C-alpha cells in the first residue's frame, strides 16, 4: 500500500510543492509495518483537513483510490473510514459535483463487504448534511440503504448512523422524501423493526413522530408503523447503574407516548392495547396506559372513541373502586376528565347519537346510587368519578350536577348523623367547587341556581351542628358559595355574616373559630360593604362591651374580636375601618390599670401585624397603614418612655421586651413594601426623631421632656429601649432608600451597643447597626465604619465588664458581612473561632454560630431587603468547618464542647443534600459528639445523623456498633427532645443493611422496651414505631 502511494505521488510530481501533506505522509513511512493510511487516519487527519480545505478537493476522487480498491476488505474499510472522517469534518465545503461523485461512490460501496459498511454509512451521514446535495440524491441514498443494508444486524453505533442519515434528510429534503410515498414509511419500518437500544429508540421514536406530524404518506402501513412502535409499550427499562448516557425510563416513556398519541389513525389499534394494559397487574403499565389515554384524548374525537367507551369506562371504574394506589386513582380521574372533555368537544352531526350523553348516563347509573350510602366504601370513589366527569366541560357539569345535586340535598336531610352529613356535604362541596371553576352562575340554566334555597339551608344547618368537623366543611362550603358571584342574595349574605360572627367569637372549638375568621377574610374582598357595614361594627361593639362575666371569659372574647378584626381586614376599605378600632383599643389597653395588660398589648400588636401583612400587596392600603400606625405606635412608645411616666405601671407595659418585640414586626411589615418615594418621605421624619428628638410628626406631640435616645444619662435608659422600633423601621426599608445622616446614626448605634448595660438595648443596637451595614453600599465609607466597629470591639472583647456586649456586636456584624460575602467577614469569623477557646465567652460564642446560620426573624432576612447571597451557608461551611475541626483537636478538654456545638449548629442549618455529601468526612467527629454531655450538641448531632442514616447507609454501617450503643444510651436522656431524636435515629438505623443489624436485634428490642413506658406520649410514640420496625428486621413479610 505504501508503494502504491509512492507511485501515485510520482504521477503528481508537478504538483508536489502543493502537496506538503503528502510529503508528511511519506515521512510517515517511518512507522514501518503500520499501514500508512492507518497512520494518516489517526495522526494526520487534521493535515488532510488542511489540505482539503485549501482547495485540493479536485483530486479527491482519485487519490485514495489505491486504498479504496484494495482487495483486502479490511484495508478497503480503513480507506473508506479515512475518507468518511475527512468528509465529516469538511462536508460544508464540498461542491455539488463532488458530492454527486461521492454519493455515487458510497452508494456503490453499500454492496461491499460487511466490514466496510460502517465506514460507508459514516460517509453517507457526512454527505447527508451537505447543503449542495442535488435533488434526487437523498431519495437514491435512502433507497440504497433500505435495499442493501440490513440495519438491525449492524452494531448500535452504526444503526444510530442510519437514523441520523434519515433524520438529516427529513429535516432538509422533506419534499423529496414525500415523493417516495409510502415506500419511505415502509423502508423506515424495516429499518427500525427490532431495535433494542434505548439511545437509538429515542431517535427512532422522534423519526416516527415526525413522519406523522409532518404528514408523510403512511399508505397501507399504518398498522405496521403502529406495531413497530407499540411493541415497546409499556416501556420496561431500567437504566444500568452508572449509565454514562443518562437515558431515563421517563425519557423513553414520554417519547413513545408522543408517537402513540400523535395521530387518530392509531386509535383503533391503540385503544384495545391501552385497555389490555390497564387490566393487567402491573402498576407501571396501568399508569402509563392511563397517561397515554389522557394524551390521546387531546386529539381524538367521538369517532375514535365510540367503539371503546364501554370497556374504557368499566376499566376506569374498576380501578377507582379498587385500587389502593392514590397515584393510579388520580390518573384514572384525569383520564376520565379528558375522555369527557374530548366527547364534549366533538361536534355533533344532527342524526348521530350523542355519545357524551350516553357516556355520562352510564357513569351516573354506576355511581349515583353509591352516594346514598355515606357509610359505605364506594361513596368517595363514586363521588370522585362523578366530579371528574363534571369537571370536563360546562356541559358535563350541567348534566351531572343536574342529577346529583338534588340527590345529595335529599340525602343530607335523610341522614341525621353528623358524620354521614359531613360526608354528603363534602361531596356537595366538591360540586360547588366545580361550579366555581366554570365561573358565573348563569341566569337560567345553572342547576345550582335552581337549588339555591335548599343548598343555603343545608350549609347553614351544618354551621349550626354541634360537630366541629361538620361545621368546618360547612364553613368551606360557605366560602365557595360566597365566591360564586350573584349566588347569595343580600339577605342570605347578612345571614352568612351573622353565622361567621357567631362561629368566630362564640364557638368553643378554636378550629371552627379560626376557619370562620379565614372565611370572613376570603369573602370580605368580594363583599366589602357587607363586611364593613355589618361585621366590623359588631366586632367593635363586642370589643368595647364591658361585661359582668368572669375575667377569663371576657379576655378570651376580646382576643377573638381582635383576631377577627385582623382576619376580616382583607380589603382597603375595611382596613380603614378596622385599623382605627385596633389603635384605639391599644391606647385603651396600655392606659388601663390592670397589671396583666402586657398580653393584651401584644395581642393588639399581633392583629396589627396580620393586617399589615394582608395589605402589603396593595399600595394604597400599605401607605394608609404605614401613615396611620407607625406614628401612632411611636408616639405611644415615646410617651411611655418619658422620665416621669416610667414610675407608673401602665407606662411600662409598652417598654417591656415582649411588647417591643411584638411591635417590631408591625412596623417592619408596614415599611418593607413601601414605594421608594413614600419610604423616603417617612424616613425623613423617623430618623430625625431619634437623632434630634424632632417629635413634630407624631400625633400627640406635646411631651414633658425631650426625646434623646442616644443621649447620656441614667434617666434615658427607657428611651434607649425604643431603638428597637428604630431598628424595625430603618432595617426594613428598601435598599435604594437613602437614610439621612446615616454615618451619624451608625456611630451612635455603635456607641450604644458597646456601652449600654441593658442587654436588650445593646443587642437591639447591634442588630440595627448590622442591618444597616449589610445594606450599606460597598466603598470607603463602609470600610471606615467597619474599621471603627472593629476598633471599638477589640479592646472590649479582650477584657473588661462589657465582653458580652462586644461579643453580641461581633456576632451581628459578622452575620451582616457573611450574608453579603464581604471580604472582612472571614477575618471576623476567625476572631469568633478564636473565642471558642475562651473559657468565659466560649459557650456563648458557640451558640452564636446558630445565630450566624439561622434566619433571623426581625432583621437581615430577604423580607426586609437585606443583601443575602444564596449560597452563604455552603460557603461558610467550606471556609470554616476545617478550622472548627482543627480547633476541636487542638483544644483543651474544658472547651472542646464549644467547638462541637459550633460545628453542629453549622451542620444543622446546611441544606440536607449538601450535608449528606459532606458528612462522611466529619463522621468520626460526630460520633464523638454523641458522647458529649451538652444536650444541644446531642440534639443537633442526632438531627445531623438522621438523614445520613437514611441516605448513606453503606458508610454508616461501618460504625453500627458505636451508633447502636450511643443511640440506646441517649434514649434514657433526661431531655425529652433528645430521647425522641435518639429513638428516631434508632428507627432510621433499620435502613442499614439487614445483615449488619441482625446481631443487634435482640439487644435493641430489649432496650426499646423501656421507652415504651416513658412518661411522655411523644416519646412512647417514637419508641413504638422504632421497636415495631426492629421486630420486622430479618423477619419474613417485612
Amino acid at each position, binding site marked *: 500500500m505504501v508503494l502504491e502511494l509512492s507511485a501515485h505521488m510520482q504521477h503528481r510530481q508537478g504538483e508536489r510543492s502543493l502537496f506538503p501533506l503528502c510529503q508528511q505522509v511519506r515521512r510517515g513511512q517511518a512507522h514501518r509495518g503500520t499501514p500508512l493510511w492507518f497512520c494518516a487516519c489517526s495522526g494526520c487527519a487534521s493535515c488532510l483537513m488542511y489540505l482539503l480545505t485549501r482547495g485540493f478537493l479536485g483530486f479527491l476522487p482519485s487519490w485514495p483510490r489505491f486504498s479504496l480498491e484494495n482487495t483486502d476488505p479490511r484495508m478497503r474499510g480503513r480507506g473508506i473510514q479515512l475518507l468518511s472522517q475527512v468528509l465529516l469534518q469538511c462536508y460544508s465545503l464540498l461542491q455539488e459535483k463532488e458530492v454527486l461523485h461521492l454519493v455515487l461512490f458510497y452508494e456503490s460501496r453499500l454492496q461491499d463487504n460487511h466490514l466496510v459498511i460502517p465506514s460507508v454509512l459514516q460517509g453517507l451521514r457526512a454527505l447527508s448534511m451537505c447543503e449542495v446535495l442535488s435533488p434526487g440524491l437523498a431519495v437514491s441514498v435512502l433507497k440504497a440503504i433500505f435495499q442493501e443494508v440490513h440495519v438491525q444486524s449492524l452494531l448500535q453505533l452504526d444503526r444510530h448512523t442510519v437514523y441520523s442519515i434519515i433524520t438529516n434528510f427529513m429535516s432538509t429534503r422533506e419534499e423529496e422524501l414525500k415523493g417516495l410515498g409510502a415506500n419511505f414509511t415502509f423502508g423506515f419500518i424495516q429499518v427500525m423493526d427490532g431495535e433494542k437500544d434505548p439511545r437509538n429508540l429515542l431517535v427512532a421514536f422522534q423519526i416516527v413522530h415526525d413522519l406523522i406530524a409532518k404528514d408523510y404518506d403512511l399508505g397501507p402501513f399504518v398498522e405496521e408503523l403502529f406495531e413497530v412502535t407499540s411493541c415497546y409499550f409499556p416501556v420496561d427499562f431500567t437504566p444500568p447503574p452508572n449509565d454514562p448516557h443518562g437515558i431515563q425510563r421517563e425519557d423513553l416513556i414520554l417519547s413513545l407516548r408522543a408517537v402513540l398519541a400523535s395521530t387518530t389513525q392509531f386509535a383503533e389499534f391503540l385503544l384495545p392495547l391501552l385497555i389490555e394494559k390497564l387490566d393487567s397487574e402491573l402498576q407501571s403499565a396501568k399508569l402509563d396506559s392511563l397517561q397515554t389515554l389522557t394524551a390521546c384524548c387531546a386529539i381524538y374525537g367521538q369517532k375514535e372513541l365510540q367503539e371503546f367507551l364501554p370497556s374504557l369506562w368499566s376499566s376506569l371504574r374498576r380501578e377507582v373502586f*379498587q385500587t389502593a394506589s392514590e397515584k393510579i386513582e388520580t390518573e384514572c380521574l384525569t383520564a376520565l376528565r379528558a375522555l369527557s372533555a374530548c366527547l364534549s368537544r366533538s361536534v355533533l352531526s344532527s342524526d348521530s347519537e350523542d355519545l357524551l350523553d350516553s357516556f355520562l348516563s352510564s357513569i351516573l347509573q354506576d355511581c349515583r346510587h353509591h352516594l346514598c350510602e355515606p357509610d359505605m*366504601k364506594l*361513596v*368517595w370513589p363514586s363521588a370522585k368519578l362523578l366530579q371528574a366527569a363534571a369537571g370536563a366541560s360546562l356541559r358535563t357539569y350541567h348534566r351531572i350536577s343536574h342529577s346529583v345535586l338534588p340527590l345529595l340535598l335529599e340525602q343530607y336531610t335523610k341522614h341525621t348523623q353528623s358524620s354521614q352529613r359531613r*360526608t354528603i356535604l363534602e361531596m356537595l362541596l366538591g360540586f360547588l367547587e366545580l361550579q366555581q371553576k366554570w365561573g358565573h352562575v348563569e341566569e337560567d340554566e345553572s342547576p345550582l341556581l335552581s337549588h339555591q334555597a335548599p343548598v343555603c339551608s343545608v350549609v347553614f344547618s351544618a354551621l349550626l351542628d354541634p360537630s366541629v368537623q361538620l361545621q368546618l366543611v360547612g364553613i368551606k362550603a360557605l366560602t365557595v358559595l360566597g365566591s360564586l358571584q350573584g349566588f347569595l342574595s343580600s339577605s342570605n349574605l347578612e345571614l352568612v355574616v351573622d353565622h361567621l360572627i357567631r362561629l368566630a367569637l362564640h364557638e368553643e372549638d378554636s378550629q371552627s373559630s379560626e376557619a370562620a375568621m379565614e372565611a370572613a377574610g376570603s369573602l370580605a374582598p368580594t363583599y366589602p360593604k357587607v363586611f364593613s357595614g355589618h361585621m366590623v361594627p359588631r366586632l367593635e361593639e363586642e370589643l368595647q362591651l364591658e361585661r359582668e362575666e368572669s375575667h377569663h371569659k371576657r379576655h378570651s372574647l376580646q382576643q377573638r374580636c381582635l383576631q377577627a378584626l385582623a382576619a376580616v381586614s382583607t380589603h382597603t376599605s375595611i382596613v380603614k375601618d378596622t385599623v382605627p378600632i385596633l389603635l384605639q383599643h391599644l391606647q385603651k389597653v396600655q392606659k388601663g390599670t390592670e397589671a396583666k395588660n402586657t398580653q393584651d398589648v401584644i395581642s393588639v400588636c399581633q392583629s396589627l401585624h396580620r393586617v399589615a401583612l394582608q395589605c402589603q400587596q396593595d399600595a394604597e392600603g400599605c401607605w394608609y397603614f404605614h401613615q396611620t400606625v407607625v406614628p401612632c405606635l411611636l408616639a405611644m412608645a415615646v410617651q411611655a418612655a418619658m422620665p416621669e411616666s416610667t414610675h407608673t405601671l401602665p407606662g411600662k407595659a409598652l417598654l417591656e421586651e415582649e411588647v417591643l418585640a411584638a411591635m417590631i414586626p408591625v412596623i417592619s411589615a408596614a415599611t418593607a413594601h413601601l414605594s421608594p418615594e413614600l419610604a423616603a418621605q417617612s424616613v425623613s421624619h423617623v430618623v430625625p426623631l431619634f437623632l434630634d428628638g424632632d417629635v413634630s410628626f407624631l400625633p400627640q406631640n406635646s411631651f414633658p421632656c425631650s426625646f434623646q435616645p442616644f443621649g447620656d444619662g441614667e434617666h434615658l435608659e427607657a428611651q434607649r429601649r425604643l431603638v428597637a422600633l428604630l431598628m424595625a423601621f430603618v432595617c426594613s426599608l428598601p435598599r435604594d432608600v437613602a437614610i439621612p445622616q446615616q454615618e451619624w446614626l451608625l456611630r451612635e448605634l455603635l456607641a450604644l451597643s458597646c456601652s449600654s448595660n441593658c442587654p436588650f438595648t445593646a443587642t437591639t443596637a447591634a442588630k440595627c447597626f448590622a442591618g444597616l451595614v449589610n445594606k450599606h453600599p460597598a466603598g470607603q465609607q463602609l470600610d471606615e465604619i467597619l474599621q471603627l466597629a472593629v476598633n471599638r470591639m477589640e479592646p472590649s472583647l479582650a477584657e473588661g465588664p462589657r465582653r458580652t456586649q462586644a461579643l453580641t456586636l461581633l456576632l451581628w456584624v459578622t452575620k451582616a458581612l457573611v450574608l453579603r460575602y464581604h471580604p472582612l467577614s472571614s477575618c471576623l469569623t476567625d476572631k469568633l473561632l478564636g473565642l471558642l477557646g475562651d473559657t468565659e465567652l466560649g459557650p456563648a460564642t458557640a451558640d452564636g454560630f446558630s445565630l450566624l446560620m439561622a434566619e433571623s426573624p426581625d432583621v437581615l432576612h430577604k423580607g426586609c431587603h437585606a443583601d443575602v447571597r444564596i449560597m452563604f451557608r455552603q460557603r461558610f461551611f467550606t471556609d470554616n468547618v476545617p478550622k472548627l475541626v482543627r480547633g476541636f483537636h487542638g483544644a483543651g478538654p474544658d472547651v472542646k464542647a464549644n467547638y462541637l456545638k459550633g460545628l453542629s449548629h453549622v451542620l444543622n442549618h446546611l441544606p440536607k443534600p449538601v450535608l449528606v455529601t459532606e458528612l462522611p468526612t466529619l463522621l468520626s467527629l460526630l460520633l464523638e459528639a454523641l458522647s458529649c454531655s451538652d444536650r444541644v450538641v446531642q440534639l443537633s448531632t442526632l438531627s445531623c445523623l438522621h438523614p445520613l442514616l437514611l441516605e448513606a447507609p453503606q458508610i454508616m454501617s461501618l460504625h453500627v456498633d458505636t451508633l447502636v450503643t450511643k443511640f440506646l444510651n441517649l434514649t434514657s436522656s433526661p431531655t425529652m427532645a433528645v430521647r425522641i431524636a435518639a429513638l428516631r435515629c434508632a428507627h432510621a438505623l433499620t435502613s442499614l443493611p439487614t445483615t449488619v443489624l441482625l446481631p443487634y436485634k435482640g439487644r435493641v428490642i430489649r432496650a426499646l422496651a423501656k421507652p*415504651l413506658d416513658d412518661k411522655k*406520649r411523644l416519646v412512647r410514640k417514637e419508641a413504638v414505631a422504632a421497636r*415495631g*420496625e426492629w421486630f420486622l428486621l430479618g423477619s419474613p413479610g417485612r
Partner: protein
Amino acid sequence: PQGGRASGGPGSARRRSPLLHSPAASATGGERRASLNTELKLPCGLGAVAVTAVSPQVDDAQSTVSVEFTPTIPHCSMATLIGLSIKVKLLRSLPERFKLDVHITPGTHASEHAVNKQLADKERVAAALENSHLLEVVNQCLSARS
C-alpha cells in the same frame, strides 16, 4: 373519611395496608381510651376484610389492656389471624407490665369461643409466631410500608 377501599378482586391480593396504625393502637399510655376504628386489609386471596375494633379498655394502674374486635361476617375465616395481628401489635408496642386480652365482640362470630381461647393461650400464640408463613402474614399486616 375517604380512605375506605372495599373488597377487591384477585387484583387486590398483593396490597397491604398499615394495620392498627390508628393513634389509639400506637399510643401506649395516657389517653388510651380513644376509640379504635380501623380497617384491616389482609394479604389473603379473599381480598380485603374490614374489621372494627372498638374501644380498647385500658387500665394503666392495673396494667391491663382489653381489645374487642368485630369481624365483618360471622363466618370470617380470618378472625384468628386478625386477632393474632392485633395481639402481636400490642405485644410489640406496650410495656411488658401490661396484661393483654384480645377477643371477639360477643355474638359476632360463629366460632367466637374457640378463637378467643386460641388468642388467650400464650403458648399457642408463641407457637403460631414460630410458623414462618403465619409470621410473614402477620408482619405484612403490621408493616408500615405500603
